[in-house]
């Protein structure tokens, strides 16, 4: 599939250079649960902040903004910190810069990121740690929130593990084509092997240590045994069998090379070793280049770096190579800064890279409308899923080190064939110009005969109804206008399908059919939200069932009913009951309806009843 091959290409370029980036992608996009988790997190956070604000009388604007005005992705921040351990741990180890990077932000935003964490998330984190609802302050929590919280903590734990599995699996698959990576595997003298089929059994332990990759850099530079550094990274989350997360505050793991008994430590060591190896190979050039640059900066007059003497030593071939690389890097870096293009932090997005991000169709199931608009987009080719994930910093170095010869899709596969302008008009087929519908071509004087009416008028301000503005008055005027249009349009009325517009089409539906339809919709929505079936399966099942239990209606009638009756009723309900939260475009909100079906009282001679409203649980003032 093209999907896979795309990923393959992508990993070729991306993976080799900076492996840890992949994990970052994997964790957000690869995990099907992440969006659900995010929604849950948002809910809990919203609730929590509300409580905090009430209890402490402090104001926390939401969503919080970073120093440069962009909105912080609290979920991601929270998750990142959790994975490292805790706030204190991050601060102790100076990992804030890493956290910022992980969140796709510039290093310059570290301070505001930290502030946001303290203000918004620190307390939540501790609250969750303490078991949340047991806390005296929070006694009055609703049960539902407690449940959500439970789910959240559980999922947070699971996500950490899932993420690793997915990240790792995918990485492995993707790298099958990348020779560099395979080589690394081969060299690995530890028993642990990525390609091992036992991978899955091991995977729950793949609690990847955030910071490892960064630490590795230090390792390399400072020539410290990697394990000493790893000690600093505390294992923060351990997953036990029944999927309940406990946070184990390990004291600093005093890791020793000989200590092979501790599974976790062992794993960490494996991970670090493999990581290190990979990095050693993969990013050798990058680090070499940086080292070289640093050395030159320290001692610009050192002959070893003087290119004029390159012939003297064989080694200088490398030097020359590195030097070129530095120059090209500089060019790329500065070229990006030249124009303020609205994407300063992320560099320019190249087409090739853009289309290669995997994405999950399920993502938008749990989308929240607000987050959709405000948070940043995912580098995915899907338009409808713009929002869930946070800013992912594209790999700048990839662009720098890769020589991209072409930014744009060029060729007959992409461009239209535009003939050169000759000044001679080529043929524009006059045969197809559309069929005139209005004014009616065969009866051009028709409209002149009709009654007087002012053009472009709005709603009449007053009318002669007994109760102007009442439901009946409105209904009357709608019918009146409909009739007027009908007379005016004649047969066009049907060609333009005006006869299939409006709630009136529900008159052709039996109440029983309407009820069945509603139950079908509710069921489909439930499945969309909770089952693992694909959208296509659910929808096929939906239409199959619809044709069975509503046999009299064609598919197009059902669609028409949906837009003209079902959605309008939901909207009508929102208009009256939740006027502050109107959204007729979200198909996945609960369906409420007030009053009886259209025209019911006319047909049955009853007046509108006041019936108990069963749908709404949060009537706002």
């Amino acid at each position, binding site marked *: 599939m093209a999907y896979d091959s795309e990923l393959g290409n992508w990993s070729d370029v991306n993976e080799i250079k900076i492996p840890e980036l992949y994990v970052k992608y994997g964790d957000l996009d690869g995990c099907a649960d992440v969006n659900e988790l995010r929604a849950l997190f948002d809910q809990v956070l919203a609730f929590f902040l509300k409580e905090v604000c009430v209890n402490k009388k402090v104001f926390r604007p939401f969503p919080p903004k970073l120093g440069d005005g962009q909105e912080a992705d609290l979920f991601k921040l929270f998750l990142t910190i959790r994975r490292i351990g805790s706030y204190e741990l991050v601060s102790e180890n100076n990992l804030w810069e890493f956290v910022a990077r992980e969140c796709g932000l510039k290093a310059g935003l570290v301070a505001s990121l930290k502030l946001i964490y303290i203000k918004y998330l620190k307390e939540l984190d501790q609250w969750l740690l303490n078991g949340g609802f047991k806390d005296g302050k929070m006694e009055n929590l609703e049960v539902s929130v407690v449940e959500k919280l439970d789910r959240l903590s559980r999922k947070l734990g699971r996500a950490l593990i899932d993420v690793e599995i997915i990240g790792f699996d995918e990485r492995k698959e993707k790298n099958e084509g990348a020779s560099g990576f395979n080589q690394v595997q081969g060299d690995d003298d530890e028993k642990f092997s990525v390609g091992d089929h036992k991978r899955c059994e091991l995977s729950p332990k793949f609690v990847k240590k955030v910071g490892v990759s960064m630490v590795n850099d230090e390792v390399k530079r400072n020539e410290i045994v990697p394990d000493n550094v790893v000690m600093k990274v505390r294992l923060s989350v351990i997953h036990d069998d029944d999927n309940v997360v406990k946070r184990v505050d390990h004291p600093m793991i005093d890791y020793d090379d000989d200590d092979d008994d501790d599974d976790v430590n062992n794993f960490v060591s494996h991970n670090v070793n493999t990581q290190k190896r990979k990095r050693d190979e993969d990013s050798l050039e990058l680090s070499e280049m940086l080292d070289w640059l640093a050395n030159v900066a320290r001692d610009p007059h050192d002959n070893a770096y003087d290119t004029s003497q390159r012939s003297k030593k064989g080694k200088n071939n490398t030097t020359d190579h590195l030097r070129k690389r530095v120059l090209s890097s500089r060019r790329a870096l500065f070229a990006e800064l030249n124009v303020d293009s609205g994407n300063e932090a992320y560099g320019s997005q190249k087409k090739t890279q853009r289309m290669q991000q995997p994405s999950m169709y399920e993502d938008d199931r749990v989308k929240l409308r607000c987050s959709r608009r405000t948070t940043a987009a995912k580098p995915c080719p899907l338009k*409808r899923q713009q929002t869930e994930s946070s800013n992912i910093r594209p790999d700048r170095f990839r662009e720098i080190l890769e020589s991209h010869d072409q930014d744009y899709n060029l060729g007959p596969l992409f461009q239209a064939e535009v003939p050169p302008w000759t000044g001679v008009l080529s043929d524009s087929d006059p045969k197809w110009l559309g069929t005139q519908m209005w*004014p009616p071509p065969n009866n051009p004087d028709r409209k002149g005969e009709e*009654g*007087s009416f002012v053009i472009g008028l709005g709603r009449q301000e007053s009318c002669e109804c007994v109760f102007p503005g009442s439901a009946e008055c409105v209904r009357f005027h*709608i019918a009146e206008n409909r009739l007027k249009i009908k007379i005016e349009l004649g047969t066009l009325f049907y060609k333009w399908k005006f006869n299939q517009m409006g709630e009136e089409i529900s008159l052709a539906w039996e109440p029983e059919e309407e009820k069945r339809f509603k139950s079908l919709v509710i069921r*489909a929505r439930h499945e969309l939200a909770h089952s693992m079936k694909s959208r296509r399966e659910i929808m096929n099942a939906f239409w199959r069932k619809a044709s069975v239990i509503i046999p009299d209606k064609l598919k197009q009638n059902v669609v028409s009913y949906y837009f003209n009756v079902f959605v309008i009723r939901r909207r009508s309900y929102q208009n009256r009951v939740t006027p502050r939260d109107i959204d007729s475009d979200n198909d996945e909100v609960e369906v409420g309806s007030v009053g009886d079906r259209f025209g019911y009282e006319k047909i049955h001679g009853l007046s509108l009843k006041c019936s108990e409203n069963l749908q709404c649980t949060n009537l706002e003032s």
Partner: protein
Amino acid sequence: MRSKDRISYFYDGDVGNVYFGPNHPMKPHRLCMTHHLVLSYDLHKKMEIYRPHKAYPVELAQFHSADYVEFLQRINPDTQHLFPEEMAKFKLGEDCPVFDDMFEFCQIYAGGTIDAARRLNNQLCDIAINWAGGLHHAKKCEASGFCYINDLVLGILELLKYHARVLYIDIDVHHGDGVEEAFYFTDRVMTVSFHKYGNLFFPGSGDVKEIGEQEGKFYAINIPLKDGIDDTSFTRLFKTIISKVVETYQPGVIVLQCGADSLAGDRLGCFNLSIDGHAECVRFVKKIGLPLLVTGGGGYTKENVARCWTVETGVLLDTELPNEIPDNEYIKYFAPECSLRIPTAHIENFNSKSYLGTIKMQVLENLRCIQHAPSVQMQEVPPDYYIPDFDEDEKNPDERIDQHTQDKHIQRDDEYYEGDNDK
């Protein structure tokens, strides 16, 4: 004031009853609502309304690859699982699901834009409107961002038969990447797109630095914007750039994509334009006085789309519409206020003055390169008499009516009552 422009408006009753799937943001039903609202305001009396022909596969293949068109034609929801490779190759299934009557839907909206272009070419109207069109993401060999067939490219190709230079303007919140890509290497089409850019907003392209290549260098203009841009800054920027573009490029015809997802409160958009601000751009382009092809585009809060395009239809007809929406079948969608104007949101405008200034300077600088590049020859638009005069007798009376009849049909502003038409 009398509207001198002859307006052709395209609509097909079948276009609205299409369902992309559950919770898919694209809802063609908005076209029904728009048409309904246009008629509720009696705007149809001032224009001619046409049903577009369904574009033939061979017409679609003037831009798209034949195998892609052929696949679109034969695929349906029940067979799609049999062609996983093609589905992936043509990028169908995610954003662009296969649904019932999908190909017919494409034929209708593409046919509308093609017909509109032909009517303009044949000087049968001054402004042509196809709200169903404007699906600017579709690529030559693949679907993208809810777009299957790129009707705009097809329309522009049609216009290129009669015009040396076509100007394409795009005010959808998303970058008009499909159109830009199709004409990236030609100077015969200048594409100007105003869109949200950054944070990997779909489709991810549209940096100010993407300016076209080879012969098309400097003939693709991108105005990347950030969240929350408001009426004042948007219209000011729009007017400055467009007037400079028109002055420099001297197009023979303009294509305007009016995606309504740049409005405040759109389900996918993030701008903060009011309908008046959006419509102001349309008004400005209309005032340029060139033949104009107006299409729809994005727009994912249905009722606002209907409001916006109705107002803009009014603008193109030189008719101010009163704020109170007349009672109609869909009035509940416009409740509770039932008014045309929507409030803008109270969100921050992240486009600082200096940012917009930088963008503007950059764009204007690129435009100057056109004037100064010696290799680029500006060709004169051929005078009108080159265009063949069609013999009135040859015309099919069903398709066209002569000027006299047209004048009679087009409602005037100063005639308030239809009865007066009789004389």
